[in-house]
């Protein structure tokens, strides 16, 4: 375990302070490159252990944030390794920039649950905590995979897939020629490859720009609207969308048929999940099945449960109510324009969640809903998982590595290296891009060789 890892270690609400945590043998080294004290004289590598230092984080000469840096040297730290924590004051954006700067200076993005894993492997956690540690790793990983996939925009997903499929084709071509030199010739091929490499390099650079603008993934509070058929889910959605006009839509990619919509309320972004289901049929449960609905509910940061107050609660409602347990949810007591048959008080007790009367038709109660979400968010009770912040940094790390690998290919071609050297770095780029899509290499190359090129005997 000799790498130095970094991650954002607190789930953040919009107003909070975020902590970037760095652990590993190079932790102090990494921070020494980017920290400046007020007088500029303090050397972070020379300070006593378990001390806190006021100062600034710089990316080269650019000031990123005003921070407090806590230095803890091994072994009395959570992970048992040298650890530095940077308290960022400048909000989400600054915190992400600090993390990126840390990565630029030699740390690696932590794998999900890696801090906990290290703590355990270094004997900092009790043996009896092993089970819990394993659960954390698996849960965080699942979430990271999900946030990576769910938040990757369809267009980005498609672009990466395309780059990968071009890369693997050319690797397979080179490899077929190496395996079967009498059938496949590489004469004049390097010049052709140079063009391909330049083109793919440009594509990756574009994606990197997208990532830097924060547009590669859309962060937001994963929000799902649930309710039985005709409870008024789509009217609610239209209302929220219509009033805010800050919609971002993204046409579904080939692998997903979910339409994503983003709604910004007072600076808080809600990512509406599975809105396609709602728009098409107004019946998300019926369309996607109870199992999948449960899954969506489980993964959501916030559930908006729409109750038709004019008809008695039925089986659908019962199922939805059971999904609300332990979740952040707001119950919307809809159709107040009609005569209610559902008792609002008992709904409160039964669900254990706040109930807001609305009329999607007459557009009343929406303001109260927005206020409620705002209060929940700023009070810190509604947050989203820190893995989300990391996802973007992870993608960037992978893109940068892929770009660097293609640069090496270019170099090798220009140096006139033999063709077999090209495929090593091409493969590395392919692998890095795969990480973004959550795809490993496996037998991809061998399969591509056999399917695209006619081999010997």
């Amino acid at each position, binding site marked *: 375990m000799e790498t130095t890892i970094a991650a954002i270690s607190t789930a953040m609400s919009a107003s909070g302070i975020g902590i970037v945590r760095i652990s590993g043998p190079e932790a102090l080294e990494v921070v020494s490159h980017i920290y400046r004290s007020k007088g500029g004289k303090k050397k972070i590598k020379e300070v006593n252990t378990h001390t806190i230092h006021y100062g600034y984080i710089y990316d080269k000469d650019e000031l990123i944030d005003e921070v407090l840096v806590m230095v803890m040297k091994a072994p009395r730290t959570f992970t048992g390794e040298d650890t530095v924590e940077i308290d960022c004051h400048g909000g989400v954006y600054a915190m992400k920039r600090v993390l990126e700067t840390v990565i630029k200076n030699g740390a690696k993005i932590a794998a999900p649950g890696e801090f906990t894993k290290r703590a355990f492997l270094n004997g900092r956690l009790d043996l009896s905590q092993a089970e819990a540690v394993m659960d954390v*790793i698996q849960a965080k990983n699942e979430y990271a995979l999900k946030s990576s996939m769910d938040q990757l925009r369809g267009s980005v997903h498609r672009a990466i897939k395309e780059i990968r499929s071009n890369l693997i084709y050319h690797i397979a071509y080179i490899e077929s020629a190496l*395996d079967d*030199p009498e059938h496949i010739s590489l004469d004049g091929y390097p010049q052709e490859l140079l063009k391909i490499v330049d083109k793919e390099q440009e594509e990756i650079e574009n994606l990197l720009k997208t990532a830097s603008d924060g547009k590669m993934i859309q962060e937001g509070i994963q929000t799902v609207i649930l309710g039985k058929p005709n409870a008024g889910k789509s009217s609610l959605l239209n209302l929220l969308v219509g009033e805010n006009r800050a919609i971002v839509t993204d046409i579904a990619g080939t692998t997903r048929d979910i339409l994503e919509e983003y709604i910004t309320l007072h600076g808080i972004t809600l990512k509406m999940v599975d809105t396609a289901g709602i728009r098409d049929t107004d019946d998300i449960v019926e369309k996607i099945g109870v199992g999948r609905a449960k899954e969506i509910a489980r993964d959501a940061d916030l559930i908006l449960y729409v109750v038709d107050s004019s008809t008695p609660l039925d089986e659908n409602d019962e199922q939805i109510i059971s999904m609300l347990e332990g979740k952040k949810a707001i119950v919307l007591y809809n159709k107040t324009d009609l005569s209610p048959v559902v008792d609002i008080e008992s709904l409160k007790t039964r669900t254990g969640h706040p109930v807001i009367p609305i009329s999607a038709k007459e557009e009343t109660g929406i303001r109260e809903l927005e206020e409620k979400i705002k209060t929940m968010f700023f009070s810190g009770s509604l947050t989203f998982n820190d893995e989300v912040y990391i996802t973007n940094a992870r993608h960037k790390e992978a893109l940068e590595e892929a770009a660097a690998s293609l640069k090496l290919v270019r170099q090798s071609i220009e140096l*006139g290296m033999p063709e077999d050297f090209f495929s090593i770095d091409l493969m590395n780029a392919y692998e890095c891009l795969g990480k973004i899509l959550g795809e490993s290499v496996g037998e991809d190359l061998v399969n591509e060789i056999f399917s695209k090129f006619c081999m010997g005997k």
Partner: protein
Amino acid sequence: MKTLVEDYDIVVVGAGHAGCEAALAGARLGLSTIMFTVSVDSIALMPCNPNIGGSSKGHLVRELDALGGEMGKNIDKTFIQSKMLNCSKGPAVHSLRAQADKQAYSNRMRRTLEETKNLTIKQGEVTKLLVEDGRIVGVETFSGAIYNCKAVILCTGTYLKARCIYGDVSNYTGPNGLQAANYLTDSLKELGIEMYRFKTGTPARIAGNSIDFTKMEEQFGDERVVPFSFSTDPEEVQIEQQSCWLTYTNEKTHEIIRANLDRSPLFSGAIEGTGPRYCPSIEDKVVRFSDKNRHQVFIEPEGLYTNEMYIGGMSSSLPEDVQYAMYRSVPGLENARIVKNAYAIEYDCINPRQLYPTLEFKSIKGLFSAGQFNGSSGYEEAAAQGLIAGINAAMEIKGEDMLILDRSEAYIGVLIDDLVTKENHEPYRMMTSRAEYRLLLRQDNADLRLRKKGYQVGLIDEETYLKIVEKEKRIDEEIKRVEHTNIGASKEVQELLASYGSTLLKSGTTLAELIRRPELSYEAVAPIDPDRPELPYDVMEQVDINIKYDGYIRRQMKQVEQFKKLEARKIPQDLDYAKVGSLRIEARQKLEAYRPISIGQASRISGVSPADISVLLVYLEQYAKRRNNP
């Protein structure tokens, strides 16, 4: 009734390329070994193509040779043409390929086996394995004889329940009409071993005097032949070589094939075995690559003892009349007389995940297997496994550490790891792209990589080993010298650079930096290196490669360091994966089925994610601590 009962240390079942290496290794390591074959006249038979080596397969032969195997020596004595492939590419993918005189190859191997101490050759079919308490104790033959032993190595090749097919003709024989082995499969199944059925094929053999070679391109061997074996004197292999010939299929050939596809047993479903994608039959190629209007056909001599020619590139299982029509549509083959028809062959083999990387069965102690029986294809892949299985059977009997080569040490390591760790649904062929550290696994340094291991095992003598130690030392010293030799911008230097079209020096540099320039080499800079010691060619070659590709080699070595760490984390074989609570179900099932020996191996099993590996690491830590302080 009285039954013959004999005692041996090792029983080898099969005398193909795997069986020969296994039996030789066992016997040479001092264990009494008996090798069974259905026909003594088919020892080391080459029932398909007449070559040894080729891309990445040549690497296997060199590695096997460095460890003390026989194949390299045998082909050096019996080849009739040799080529170093990929010479224009990087040193990592240079690969030797030789055309063999098939009969000479087989004869010399047979003689070598016969002359080996501790080795008995026996014609007979092994029909049953005798197992007691999960450990092999002997075998029974068709005649009812019992051979008690401590280890068995199964190298049955393509003979188990073999069936040869073309058109609607189907013969229950092994290759070349040889007797199939029809009983052993049942014994294996009774022992709970999971079997697969694979398929492969071979093209027709055509009488040489019916071929018009003037319509073909002649293919020569290399002017200067490089031997396979590190022990062969290079002068000995500078022989008069035979030519091969190149011709092409054409649209007419393809039409004939397309018109008769319905008569192919492959397309009609009469063949159930899984065939290899890399070695497609001509009908497969025509269907799958329909945009290609011609395919290459290599005409290769089967040996000096016959005029039969191997028709490389046109394996087939089409009916006899179609075979005649399609071969005769190829330029030069218009009047071809077919000596042996092309055919497909189906055979039983195992799902190799039942093996440890030592090639021993996880479920039966003392039972090893190698070659096509393990789901691989190719003579070289078979021989390499045979050698490892032979060594490990001997090591186990002697109570010594078994030999596992990892993916960073040898192509043999890649081959075996792929077989026992990955899902394998077709005959496995070695390819250079399968070796992720191939810059380190070159054919030119196989001796440096593996001689020492061969010596430790006991197949390489001390003299040979000391030679390698000496070679290593000379390489290191010379690299150091070259790295530290400063070169100034003298007139002599500038002139040399200019003559190679290389940029002139503005200031001083080192000799090593000059060698790294693509247009220069260790040899090229000799005139400006007056202190250069006299060194043999193979040392100079290593110095050149190591300096020239230093940056790339270093990068791979760094990756290897990481890789080795995970390989070193062993997993206890009695681990109960059901107790590792947080593993995902798929990962748990896979780990149960494969029972990997290390975290490294576990991480290569498809369906086991990095998070599962983290979970496993945490569990192992807890497991170890509990064990130490119960």
